[in-house]
């Protein structure tokens, strides 16, 4: 892999950019792989990368039905934070955040991870209790965070409306300075390029249509390009996890729902942080290009259409105009949807299955982008060693039978 740098850019400019190396090859699938990763989203690509990088397993293929990073990785609002309530979740997301902090250098690909901080607003007394609880838990878990006052919020985000007379006035917020955003596409591309350089095959425009088993163990996958053998199959297919699990006769406690987002037209910098409000339902940050990136709520019904209902957008935009009355005259440029796989407790599943050699990593729902590096790291370890990584232990499917849910839903606001 030829490294990227200011110098390489300069050198290539001299040759009119005609000599750049390909970011990844376009290989013909081999007959058999040690590991097939199904799903070329951020999580799948990270899994492949760490399998090769950390575990030396390089005979790996990532099979993606569309284009790399085209699923939820392409459609999320890119909010990154680790201030989750429960120990198990917090540790997983914090591992991820630590990996983010060195990711551009690790991959030699600038993923533009921007630690501009994340505010989670509280609008009711109970919101504030929950925020206190979460921030205290974070702090004792070694995760940065503080509870901030409306005055401080106003300093961080001057256009925000902290008037005590608004319908749901802002009473305070949690503030995680290390949180922020990243350039989502670059994450997928960076991992893909890194994995490719280590020998992983990226097989795009190829859909897995079946998971073949023999004597209770996986032997490969059927695809739109034919059968491809594998000793292990690791499924990381987000919104389509239920469909893929069914191919192996498995059921998962996930439901696939539309989650929407929208961007405004680009405007000059006016918001230097990430602002999230569960109570009024709106999430907003400003991209480096200038557009306001806004996350909406998840639709109540199941759907695979990568689109949702307009009233959800309306509600979100109302919330944004409530929080930022000055944004009322800004215009929506584009809106879209993704299909998120939500677990009843809003926490992921990182698990072996009853089929030998078959693994699932899913259920990240509305908030898995931030987990991309950590998820890949932990899942690669789980697949390589055929046992849950210590941080993945709590995230097996068994919890839905035992009742050991990690209820980020019930406890504190989670989303994105």
């Amino acid at each position, binding site marked *: 892999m030829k490294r990227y740098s*200011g110098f390489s*850019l300069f050198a290539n400019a001299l040759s*009119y*950019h*005609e000599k*750049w190396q*390909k*970011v*990844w090859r376009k290989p013909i699938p081999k007959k058999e792989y040690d590991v097939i990763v199904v799903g070329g989203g951020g999580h799948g690509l990270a899994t492949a990368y760490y399998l090769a990088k950390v575990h030396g397993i390089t005979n790996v293929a990532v099979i993606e039905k569309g284009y790399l990073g085209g699923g939820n990785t392409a459609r999320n609002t890119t909010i990154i934070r680790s201030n989750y309530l429960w120990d198990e979740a917090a540790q997983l997301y914090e591992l991820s955040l630590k990996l983010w902090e060195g990711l*551009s250098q690790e991959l030699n690909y*600038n*993923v*533009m991870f*921007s630690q501009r901080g994340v505010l989670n607003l509280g609008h*009711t007394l*109970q919101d504030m209790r*929950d925020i*206190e*609880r979460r*921030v*205290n*838990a974070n*702090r*004792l*878990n070694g995760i940065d965070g503080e509870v901030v006052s409306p005055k401080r919020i106003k300093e961080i985000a001057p256009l925000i409306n902290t008037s005590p007379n608004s*319908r*749901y006035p802002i009473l305070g917020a949690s503030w995680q300075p290390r949180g922020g955003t990243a350039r989502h*596409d*670059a994450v997928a591309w960076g991992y893909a390029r890194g994995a490719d350089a280590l020998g992983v095959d990226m097989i795009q*425009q190829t859909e897995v249509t079946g998971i073949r088993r023999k004597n209770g163990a996986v032997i490969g996958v059927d695809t739109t390009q034919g059968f491809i053998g594998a000793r292990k199959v690791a499924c990381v297919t987000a919104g389509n996890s239920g469909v893929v699990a069914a191919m192996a006769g498995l059921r998962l406690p996930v439901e696939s729902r539309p989650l929407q987002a929208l961007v405004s*037209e*680009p*405007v000059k910098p*006016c918001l230097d942080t990430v602002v999230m409000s569960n109570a009024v339902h709106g999430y907003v940050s400003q991209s480096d*290009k*200038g557009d306001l990136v806004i996350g909406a709520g998840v639709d109540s019904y199941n759907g695979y*259409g990568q*689109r949702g209902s*307009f009233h959800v*957008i*309306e509600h979100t*935009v109302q*919330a944004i105009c*409530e929080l930022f*009355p*000055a944004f*009322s*005259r*800004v*215009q*929506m*440029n*584009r809106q*879209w949807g993704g299909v998120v796989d939500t677990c009843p407790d809003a926490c992921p599943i990182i698990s072996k299955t009853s089929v030998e050699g078959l693994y699932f990593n899913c259920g990240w729902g509305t908030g898995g982008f931030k987990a991309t590096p950590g998820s890949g790291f932990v899942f690669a370890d789980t697949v390589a060693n055929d046992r849950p990584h210590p941080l993945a232990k709590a995230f097996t499917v068994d919890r839905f039978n*035992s*009742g050991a*849910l990690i*209820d980020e839903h*019930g*406890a504190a606001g989670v989303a994105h």
Partner: protein
Amino acid sequence: MKQKNRLVVFGRTDPNQPINFTFNGKPYQGLLGDTLASALLANGVNVVGRSFKYARPRGIVGHGPEEPNGIIQLGSGSATVPNLKVTQVELYEGLDAKSVNGWPSVNIDVMGLVGAFGRLMPPGFYYKTFMYPKKLWMTYEHFIRKAAGLGKTPTEADPDTYEKLNQHCDVLVVGAGPAGLTAALEAGLTGARVIIADEQSEFGGSLLASTQPIDDQSSTDWIAQTVSAITAMPNVQRLSRSTVFGYYDHNFLTILEKRTDHLGINSPQGARQRLHRVRAKQVVLATGAFERPLVFAHNDIPGVMQASSVSTYVNRYGVAPGEKLVLATTNDNAYQTAIDWYNSGRVVVAVVDTRQATNGPLVSHVKDLGIEVLQGYGVIQAMGSKRVRGALVAPLNENGTKVTGPVEQLKCDLIATSGGWSAAVHLSSHTGAKPIWDDAIVSFRPGISKQQERSVGACNGTFDLAQGLLEGALAGSEAAQLAGFGDGQVKRGMPIVNTLEEQAQQALFLIPHTLPSSRAPSQFVDLQLDVSAAGIELAVTEGFESVEHVKRYTALGFGTDQGKLGNINGMAILANALGQSIAETGTTIFRPSYTPTTFGAIAGRDIGELFDPERYTAMHRWHEQQGAVFEDVGQWKRPWFFPNQQETMHQAVNRECMAVRNSIGILDASTLGKIDIQGPDAAEFITRMYTNSYLTLAPGKCRYGVMLKEDGMIFDDGVCACISDNHYLMFTTTGGAAGVLAWLELWQQTEWPELQVYFTSVTDHWATATITGPNARNVMAKVCDDIDLSADKFGFMDWRDGTVAGLAARVFRISFTGELTYEINVAANYGRYLWERLMAAGAEFDITPYGTEAMHVLRAEKGFIIVGQDTDGSMTPTDMNMDWVIGKKKTFSFVGKRSLERSDCLRDNRKRLVGLKTLVPTAVIPEGAQIVNDPHQPLPMAMQGHVTSSYFSANLDHSIALAVVKGGLNRMGEIVYCPAADGSSIAAEIVNSVFYDPKGERQHV
């Protein structure tokens, strides 16, 4: 003021109505009927903006929503609007516009220097640089962001209002060009409810700029006639300045109507914009087509324009945007522009046609006018910097991929280009219909309909006017018929249009240069985002092959024009680089908004105090008058505390708490959810829903219950009273009321329809005043003389009907304070009267109104939980020490029961509700504090649980807290710590969760 490019034929502008405006601080004059674009062109303004990445000077290229360059900031102050397109801003007196980029000005932009280094900034350069040293990224980013964005957001709240209309119609026609007009006319004639919307100020579409006669009359006369026919039909709603920006499932479409933007930045009256939410039975899309620009070197210099736009400025606005025209084309259609220019009296230097030989009627007409036509030639490069000075032309090979001969320069100041037309398939694509590439028309066509819609006219790839008129008419009548109106036959005779024969156009998406794209001067594809042909080819070189990757890598089509001009060329260039067809390459996905849509309009009136309903109790005004401070509980406003003059919250709450324990307090409890339950199986049903049993509850009695979700976790709690056999009244928490009712209905209607029981919400019916404290009975006695209030006749957990303050009342002896309590319910219309009478009757006992905060303290003193505060969706009744509420002997497996037996729920170190008593009595632990055994252990600390409720108890004169602690019940007397952010910690002893009157004697009196 002289407008140097204003023609003597004014088109649809009015020479008698001059309008003054400023652009970048300089005053100009235009005419009524102008857009800002036509007025700027009339005044010879060349540079209207600077490009996003390279800060290159840019001029106006289009005349509609496709415009990529003319992006401006309108006005200033709170009503300023960022990012409008000059082509879509109608001129009004005093209009004040500024370019969004360019410093110190668009004409002299120092950022333009960056453009000189453009070669160092190919697509993706960000990903390859700024990585080292790691800690500098935020600094780099700071500077990157400085260059970000187009216009500026206002910094104050929006002075305007917006509104929404829910519309229903049989046929919605989108676009009022010729095809849309005939569709609306035919659909209207059937009597169907029709809406026709067009984003422009007037109906007529492209005909507004056409010189072609229809039915022996001018096209403008035909429009006027047709529009008046439509106007005469009351069943047709006409919406102009109305953009259909989204097409959603089940024929739901959204329209943004700009009501007042053409009058000024502020609405003089009423809503500035209106969002129509339309549910249409049938839809006719007649949205027209976009002309494709030709891509050649330096095609971004001001003075390179769309051919159809040049015609539009001449014919519709009476503006000639230059002097000497070179027309570059791949098709016959564009020759009309040469004719229009010629007729305007200005010079046509040449027509440069990439096709080797053409001789259609339009071509002949042009030749007959004496205009030079260069056949088999292309404009390979524009010359100039802030205005075109010339065009480099060269002969091309037959398929237009190579320059085959010497390059010459034509002197000109305007290059009009046409690469054919692209159907505006946007809205049909919103529905998920995949556009289909058609080589015959060199355009995508709408895909197979996924909804009740059809496309007609140019957006259907039918570029011929006569055909479009017919298609529109047929579609209008067909759509109406499918919606239940008319017989599907066209009613009006078709207008006669003289169709000129056209020769085949050439499919050409990149005019070759003598140098390869990578080395030629930039050949721009997406002008707004500075994406060039070389950029697209570079993406392919680097392995980005999917059209979606190329979009994301180069930002092609990401702009505020969403690639209306550039996308097809870009995809074709990509296809070429990949050696595959356009059909194989496909398009990126079209999504709403068709054109950018104001947030305020999407929000509508549901902002400010109307953001969410505020629900008030019957006593609300009294509380207000007493100066209560309110708390949001769900949608309700509840008094939080009632400060006397000068009192702090703390003082007020202490006083309120003391009053309850020592004499009497009064609480507005009207917000608690109340559900009336009737039916032979009511008791059985309730018993299945609550953890405990109601089968034996006698009339006149109440029982406290806890409701679980099927996962065993506490969901709601409250008291349920037996009113009579088969009749119960259930209380829920304030926030849980609606959820509980839906929950009961769910089980009854879907799981146990055989159980005969009906539920009715009576929350609003009752106003509830709770009087509590040792003097409650004394006060009660003063206002009620038909209920025996003695303890043995009306005991704790009993209820009685009677007359209170002269009102029919239902009185419950239930208590959330642990004191003697009467909860008095009357029909809500008498709520305030009851309240005032109770206040009067209690005056001698100093009756004290108290709010939710005192209520919380008082119940915490008693160890009563609040669902949602002490529980969080992961708590079972056992966790809350409420095993007593679980009916062990119930035969039916009540909802949630089985889950309590799961291994995790049986774990013995689950968190359990306990009390915490701080070692320092005055130290109040913050609610939400985490609990550890050793505050000095290293991070991460092993957390034992957290504090759910915490107060200073004035009655006990020390602080109290409720907490959930791992294995807490076995740890009584242990000292634990709550570490604070500043490193300090509060030590507390684990105690029983009941702090006050542990035997519960006070409520039993």
